[in-house]
């Protein structure tokens, strides 16, 4: 069995702030991490490897420093790590990213499973997984919270919905996007860290992957960002004073006046 896990290095948004003037992320001093849901995808692949043996390959597209995320994946136990990095890949939107990843996966040869996190905490689009499945022309199941490999080579999954879940069966190869309910990711081990640094990450540039230059990077991105901005929050706080009855009446009046409350049936 061969599993490819697509991961993204993202800024740890629990520590990120936005520059109110420019509307962009302040990245200085913010640690970079493996996108949290991608860690669950890695864990899912490694669990399958532990249970029935598999070759697990971690794949990422990003700047050279994204190597750190792949080293961490190696330290967790993946067998190989490949970084797609090139100036020509820069500025890619989700379409160009999916195309580049798909071309790299095709380059890797036959596979059984492609796993990704549902979405990245920096862009929050949740588009790369589904687009990738379309480009690879394989079935996709999104929001996966449970994976069961069946003896006939198919796979039974729980797919989370807003209320409850649905059970889906699919043949392989397929692509799943996973959510945090799926598992608890392991930590990298210390021996794993030492081995990861000895092994290193394979770097592929635009010359190493069969790509159409018009479909990668900024040039291959149909998305055009006009402006980013932080929505202004205007909040007015009115303190109501008086007895319970008085403040209740005043509150109801206020809500009616703002058309937030229809006439009460008392």
């Amino acid at each position, binding site marked *: 069995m061969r599993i490819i896990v697509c991961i993204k290095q993202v800024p740890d948004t629990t520590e990120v702030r936005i520059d109110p003037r420019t509307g962009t992320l302040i990245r200085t001093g913010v640690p970079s991490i493996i996108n949290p849901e991608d860690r669950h995808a890695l864990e899912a692949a490694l669990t399958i490897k532990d249970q029935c043996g598999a070759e697990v390959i971690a794949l990422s597209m990003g700047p050279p420093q994204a190597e750190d995320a792949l*080293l961490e994946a190696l330290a967790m136990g993946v067998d190989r790590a490949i970084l797609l990095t090139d100036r020509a890949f820069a500025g890619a939107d989700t379409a160009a990213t999916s195309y580049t990843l798909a071309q790299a996966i095709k380059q890797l040869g036959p596979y059984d499973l492609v796993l990704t996190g549902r979405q990245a905490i920096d862009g929050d689009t949740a588009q790369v997984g589904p687009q990738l499945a379309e480009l690879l022309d394989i079935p996709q199941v999104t929001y996966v919270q449970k994976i069961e490999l069946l003896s006939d080579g198919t796979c039974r999954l729980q797919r989370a919905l807003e209320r409850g879940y649905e059970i889906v069966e699919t043949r392989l190869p397929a692509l799943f996007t996973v959510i945090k309910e799926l598992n608890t990711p392991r*930590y990298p081990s*210390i*021996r794993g*860290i030492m081995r990861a*640094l000895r092994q290193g990450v394979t770097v592929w540039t635009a010359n190493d992957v069969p790509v159409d230059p018009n479909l990668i990077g900024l040039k291959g991105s149909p998305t055009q960002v006009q402006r980013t901005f932080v929505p202004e929050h205007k909040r007015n706080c009115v303190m109501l004073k008086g007895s319970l009855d008085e403040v209740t009446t005043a509150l109801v009046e206020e809500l009616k006046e703002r058309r937030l409350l229809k006439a009460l049936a008392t």
Partner: protein
Amino acid sequence: MDLNLTKSQRMIRQMVREFAEKEVAPGASERDSTGEFPWEIVKKMARYNMLGIPFPEEYGGAGADTLSYIITVEELARVCAATAVIVSAHTSLCAHPIYQFGTEEQKQRFLVPLAQGNRLGAFALTEPNAGTDAASIRTTATRQGDSYILNGNKIFITNGGVADIYIVLAKTDPSKGARGITAFIVEKGTPGFSFGKKEDKLGIRASSTTELIFQNCRIPVENRLGEEGEGFKIAMQTLDGGRIGIAAQAVGIAQACLDACLRYAKEREQFGKPIGSFQAIQWMLADMATQVEAARLLTYRAAWLKDNKQPFSKEAAMAKLYASEVAMQQAIKAVQIHGGYGYMKDYPVERFFRDAKITEIYEGTSEVQRMVIASHLLR
């Protein structure tokens, strides 16, 4: 001069910090009050190779260096000093002397399971009448054919009762003083080896500290570590390494005190402003941060010297002396900054205060460290 950590050291720190915060910190206060040994955490640490960090992979270790191990102890102590000393005593005082002085057969039999974390280790030197005056131990080992017969008592043994493998120092020739001491590897379950009182301690309460009792305990000669009469040298060199571990534990406690105070200084308001805006608190915080950094640098340097196969006995003693005293001073200041809240168990600094004290005592008191340092200076 390069004071940057290597990539592996940085990755190990990040991994251990995350592990410590998620797996060790949540129950630390509870374990402190119950004194329950953290078996689940020990098992998890074994899984992630945290019980064999500085040993080669062929001996079951992680293949990392001393500094990585020291960083690990520091990060664990930052959330739970008891968990940190379990790792430090196991690694520095039991696994390491077997690695350094053991035969290949002893390494395969004992070091491999220790480094894999399948078995836990301890070191037994102290006796009721032999603390700082370690050469005055009375436990005897009498040769009988292919065995030695051990008789005597050890006290205050870290990981006592919970460890599977013990390095035990005993006199094979009581007439020769320090030169009559020999080291042995003793397995739990050996007939004649039992555990006495489990100590009820001021701090590091989740670690196990017990008495060891040897009554006609027969040890095969192949369990002797080094030659007859080399035990005191082995013990002293082992403690040299162990002191870097305790220094790291102290740095971790001191850092935890500083972290808690920084949080509190921003949150706590008096006279209508955060107490961190008062110079009285600012000066304390500035001193604390400076001292913890100095303690850390001394500790890392001692580890660096060991990694680079240079003499480190004096530097390890300096690191242990300074870091442990800094930890105690930080803990006192941390409680003071927290005021009445600091005295209560609702805040962690009360635990840090009780945990810090032992670092000035075990693996050589501050007074012993000064003796060691002075003896190097006056050579």
